[in-house]
């Protein structure tokens, strides 16, 4: 009974796919997370107020989401509501996170699959030479950097930001700095749209070449954003059924009653389910549950997406296109916020630490992220991190099974399977550092 093991690259963290085959039949397809650091253990006994500095280190890619989520969990525990200015600046932080992440995912992680190369840094034909300023690699890094610059402006530093504090943020944003950032984004928006148009065409071509858009089984979708003009600093989690009908909404406090969680014996990451069924989080969930994006360019892309793929759309390669729509939205929305007055003094409200329990929720690039802390004598007694990638674990395994059955036949294993495995996993853009923490 051969076992096929595929190490994975161009994803965040250490993982592999293991597919067991017997007599041409695929017995199992497993997605294994291969690292573990133990954040829920080692924050135990830490003064609660230090957690927003520690937990961003769960992940250098998603540190902004953890930073804001952690502050929100402590605000919930301490019973404090941040002022509107602080919420604006946190919204900017999370938009920066979306820009950075979606640009990285589509232009650096998955573009090479469409170009049939190992990396965008290794495209070396003509104008797409990696040394060329017109190259995809250079432009991709430029778009990505507009997101990281935005996080730096709103968060102090773009990896492991520091400016969100319990009760608000440490400072506002000077008008001149906000205007300079707005102009920078204005310049980068057409570059991002051009790259995305190119990516869209290449995705269509790839779909035709390989003859599939991947697993298109209907599934439940989970996201915590509103139906239009999403603010990723969220309050409620929503679930839609496989027909796209809204079936449930709940706060982070109630996640235990709504979602079931199971540890895995062969992976350091567990998996969640909704009504014992597979659910999907991340870009496609948000796009399927949105009425509109609320900004002009992004809405144009959304309309094209709907016209071509319907609502709800299920094929997994559409996660990738959905990311592009969100990238454009986040750039446009950030410009709107940067035009508002952000240079004010009402950045935070005072608070009194107290013991108890707190839940934080944000919509991270990969879906709803929950932090749950229990505080005793000012120290963390217990901490839980409900990671968006974990909501997708069953969906990833299912999509891998679909791909494996496509390429494994009675007489042989078509080694296109190796590429398919990469494409499937990257469509979900899993974050293993986060999923295992």
């Amino acid at each position, binding site marked *: 009974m051969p076992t096929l093991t595929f190490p994975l*690259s*161009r994803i*965040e963290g*250490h993982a592999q796919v293991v597919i067991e085959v017997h007599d041409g039949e695929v017995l199992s397809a497993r997605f*294994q997370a*291969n*690292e*573990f*650091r*133990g954040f829920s*253990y*080692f924050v*135990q*006994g*830490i*003064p609660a107020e*230090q957690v927003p*500095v*520690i937990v961003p*280190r769960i*992940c*250098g*890619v998603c*540190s902004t989401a953890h930073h804001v989520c952690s502050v929100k969990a402590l605000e919930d525990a301490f019973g404090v509501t941040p002022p509107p200015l602080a919420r604006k600046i946190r919204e900017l932080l999370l938009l920066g996170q979306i820009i950075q992440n979606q640009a990285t995912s589509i232009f*650096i*992680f998955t573009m*090479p699959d469409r170009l049939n190369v*190992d*990396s965008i*840094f*290794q495209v070396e034909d003509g104008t797409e030479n*990696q*040394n060329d300023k017109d190259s995809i*690699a*250079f432009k991709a*890094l*430029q778009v*990505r*950097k507009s997101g*990281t610059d935005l996080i*730096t402006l709103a968060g*102090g*530093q773009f*990896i492991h930001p*520091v*400016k969100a*504090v*319990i*009760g608000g943020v*440490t*400072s506002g944003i000077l008008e001149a700095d906000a205007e300079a950032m707005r102009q920078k984004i204005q310049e980068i928006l057409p570059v991002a749209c051009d790259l995305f148009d190119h990516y869209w065409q290449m995705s269509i071509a790839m779909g035709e070449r390989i003859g599939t858009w991947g697993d298109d089984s209907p599934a439940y979708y989970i996201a915590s954003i509103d139906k239009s003009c999403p603010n990723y600093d969220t309050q409620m989690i929503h679930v839609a059924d496989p027909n796209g009908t809204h079936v449930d909404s709940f706060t982070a406090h109630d996640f235990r009653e709504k979602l079931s969680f199971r540890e895995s*014996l*062969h*992976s*350091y990451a567990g998996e969640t389910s909704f009504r014992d069924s597979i659910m999907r989080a991340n870009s496609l969930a948000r796009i399927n549950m949105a009425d509109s994006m609320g900004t002009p360019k992004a809405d144009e892309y959304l309309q094209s997406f709907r016209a071509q793929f319907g609502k709800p759309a299920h094929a997994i390669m559409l996660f990738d296109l959905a990311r592009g729509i969100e990238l454009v939205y986040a750039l446009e929305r950030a410009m709107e916020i940067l035009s508002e007055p952000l240079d004010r003094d009402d950045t*935070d409200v005072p608070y009194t*630490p107290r013991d108890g329990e707190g839940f934080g929720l944000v919509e991270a690039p990969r879906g709803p992220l929950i932090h749950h802390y229990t505080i005793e004598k000012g*120290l963390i007694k217990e901490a839980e991190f409900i990671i968006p990638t974990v909501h997708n674990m069953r969906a990833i395994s299912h999509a891998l099974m679909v791909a494996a059955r496509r390429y494994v036949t009675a007489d042989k294993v078509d080694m296109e399977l190796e590429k398919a495995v*990469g494409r499937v996993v990257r469509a979900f853009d899993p974050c293993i*550092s986060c999923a295992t923490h």
Partner: protein
Amino acid sequence: MPKFAVLQLSGCAGCEVSLLNANDWIDRYKLVYMPLVISAYDVPDVDVLIVSGGVRTDEDLYNLRRAVKHTKKVVAVGTCALSGGIANLGNRDDVRALFISQTTRMHVPRLLPRSQPIDDAVNVDLYLPGCPPTSELFMAALFQTPGFVPNKIVCQDCGRVKDRTVRPTHLLGFREGNVQSKLCLINQGYVCVGSSTRGGCRAPCTRAGHPCVGCRGPSDSFIDKETADWLASIQRVFETLTDVQPEEIMASIKTPQLSLFLFQFMDYLGVKRTPRPKEKVL
């Protein structure tokens, strides 16, 4: 074009993300291995091997030992690779017991008893501390940027003004209160350890109003000294700039779990280590 590879052990990928934020290497160095952005199974022969993350699993150890055979130079980047970093929190004995519950899993890399810095296993030619090191420091490490001399301590990067006449009598909580924009954070009552922390980062945290947590580790003056000397130095700074009682200062900076000291005082947990030579630390 010289070639370089990036090996990521157990960490958060923040160091890799910081490297990606610098465009400058694109036309000067050829990146041949970095699983985050390149599909490649093995580290080929390279001029420079950048290693991030700590040694947490048997797989980390295997990959590290195998990779260093293919390089002329090993650069350890980030606090995890240098001193275990934030993972040191998991090395506390009371917390280590909890990890045993993870040993029942199958077909996954085994956890080692502790998270270790990479120089426990291999020789390191250059250390680049930071959590993460800034893009500018990455470039300096790769290219030995001419004329780039990092500041000795974070205070020199910070630009906040120390004022001996503004003397708080009590410390503020770790992250509470309204931060004034120009005044030294210690004058405002925050526990900031920038005065003994290695500079060169341009102080993004303190400039944004957040106390330095010491992620770049000890400055050259303290790198080969005992923890007690560093603590005494921080104490002296607080005595110069505040009227806070010595007991309150010590209680605050000696909280064993205080995240401030995870980075800076890697031997706080009783792990004795030979100091890294100053000339090898950027």
